[in-house]
């Protein structure tokens, strides 16, 4: 029997991502649902977290939801409006970079948390061309924690990426460090079905939480590669308080939630 959840897939995804953000974190955010997760964290569990954009604005007031990371809405009442070189240096520099948690999206992810935002098919002659790295490759190279937001589908959770845009654990074990990268990359994957993390030793993705009314088997069915589900437990669903704050304070017009 199908039970009707008192929240939508977008709402549970947003809340699951928001819970990853700790007080005092600097949150590297894009727009859309990632921005909403950052705002939800600030309003629910991490009031002293700081929202930060690759274009150089930091701690913007965000009276209105921005639709791009260059939206003039992020320039109003920021602590500083700087520029690209400065924003990326803030993440490359471990003094500040260690405090950054990034929220990223992608067209494809593999079992090691590597992301593709560039193309489907051959790079030179792609079947589908996407926007490209933007700052994604930089952030995934620099900061210790990244949340990947994905729709959980087989064609997105793939054995082999068509193009590796943003490095995760590369080929697992210590290959990330060997390549020259700091510890970091995607550390948690939040989808419409569950929450995945990466094994400390092997770097492989495992299922951590599955949502109410979703089974680990369903998640495996929607994943092209094998994934350890032995550690998986049922996720705590969003609380009434979390949902109320998300709906009434973060996106009252439901610009992103719908």
């Amino acid at each position, binding site marked *: 029997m199908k039970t009707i959840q008192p929240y939508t897939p977008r709402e549970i995804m947003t809340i699951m991502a928001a819970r990853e953000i700790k007080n005092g974190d600097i949150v590297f955010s894009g727009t859309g649902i990632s921005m909403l997760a950052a705002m939800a964290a600030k309003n629910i569990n991490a009031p002293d977290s700081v929202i930060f954009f690759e274009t150089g604005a930091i701690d913007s007031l965000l009276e209105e939801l921005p639709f791009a990371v260059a939206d003039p809405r992020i320039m*109003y009442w920021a602590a500083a409006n700087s520029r690209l070189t400065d924003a990326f240096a803030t993440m490359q520099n471990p003094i500040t970079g260690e405090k950054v948690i990034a929220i990223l999206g992608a067209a494809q992810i593999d079992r090691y948390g590597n992301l593709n935002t560039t193309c489907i098919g051959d790079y030179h002659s792609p079947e589908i061309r996407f926007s490209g790295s933007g700052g994604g490759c930089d952030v995934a190279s620099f900061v210790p924690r990244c949340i990947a937001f994905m729709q959980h589908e087989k064609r997105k959770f793939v054995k082999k990426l068509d193009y590796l845009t943003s490095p995760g654990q590369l080929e697992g074990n210590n290959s990330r460090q060997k390549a*020259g990268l700091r510890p970091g990359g995607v550390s948690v994957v939040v989808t419409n079905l569950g929450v995945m993390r990466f094994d400390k030793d092997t770097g492989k993705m495992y299922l951590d939480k599955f949502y109410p009314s979703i089974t680990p088997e369903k998640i495996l069915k929607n994943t092209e590669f094998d994934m350890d589900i032995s550690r998986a437990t049922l996720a705590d669903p969003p609380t009434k308080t979390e949902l109320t704050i998300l709906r009434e304070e973060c996106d009252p017009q439901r610009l992103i939630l719908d």
Partner: protein
Amino acid sequence: MKNSLNKVIPLKQAIEQYVKNSSHISIGGFTINRNPMAAVYEIIRQKICDLHLYAHSNGTGLDELIGAGCISKLEIAYGGNGKAAPTCIHFARAAQNNEILFEDYSNYMMSLRFTAGAMGVPFLPTLSGFGSDILTKWGFSKSMRRSDPKIVDNKLAVIDNPFGDWAGASKVVLVPAINPDVTIIHVQKADATGTCSIQGLAFADIEQVKASKHVIITCEHLVTKEELRQNPDLNQIPFIHVSAVCHVPLGAYPTAVFGHYDYDSQYLRKFAIAAKNPDKFKKYQNKYIYGAKDHDAFLDIIGQERIDTITADPRTGYSVNMKRD
């Protein structure tokens, strides 16, 4: 007496003088903000072609130039245009159909490449991109690079840290400098000598300007030297870098200029929809670009009502509660 430092010329003349077929160019702004659109439309009207564009994330300007067939080679980090086109429509089509040669970088890599050009060094190091296909997949072949003196022989390079493990890095990625023939940016204020004051985020405009052999500034307000000299702390670009100054109010429309006007989401959507269909796009171009002799005439077609809608609120710098498509 004519002041030799007076660089004010009409935009049409500035484009004719500095942007040639096959020029290597860069444009300022980021996705839907402060793209030098009047200059972009003038390049299209003048049918300048075979351009090599260096872009980090130039959304609207990039996609109009590709759509008009002005670009043959592109070095790029991101081709998206906000909500209207998460991937730029012409950019995606041109890449899928091999209409342009393109090569991918990250935003930091492109920003550093302009910085290296501005500094006069051949490359700069970063810790970004190890293990990624950005390092290994080249858009321009080795033979093409060798045969073109304006393109660097290697895309990127990885070397061991010559200082051991100093600063916790065993290796670095080197990104090669860019020195465009011409960079065009749009700013809030400039004086006749070319000194500029940018309000809001500067993106990579300052580095792009300082890396370039020639620089065209378009500005909302052409102000006196005295006005800019009263607050030198607010000026990011001194006149020595600038070749030409063009007074073009609303010169970034349909992209935003902080403190002056918002992006026109309705126009950006119209552009994205037209871009998906060659016939529709031809009509779009004939109406808005070729149908207007200059930017003022283009704005006449847009109409005062749209301009009033996007005009920024003085407190926030954007149009408050504007309906956004």
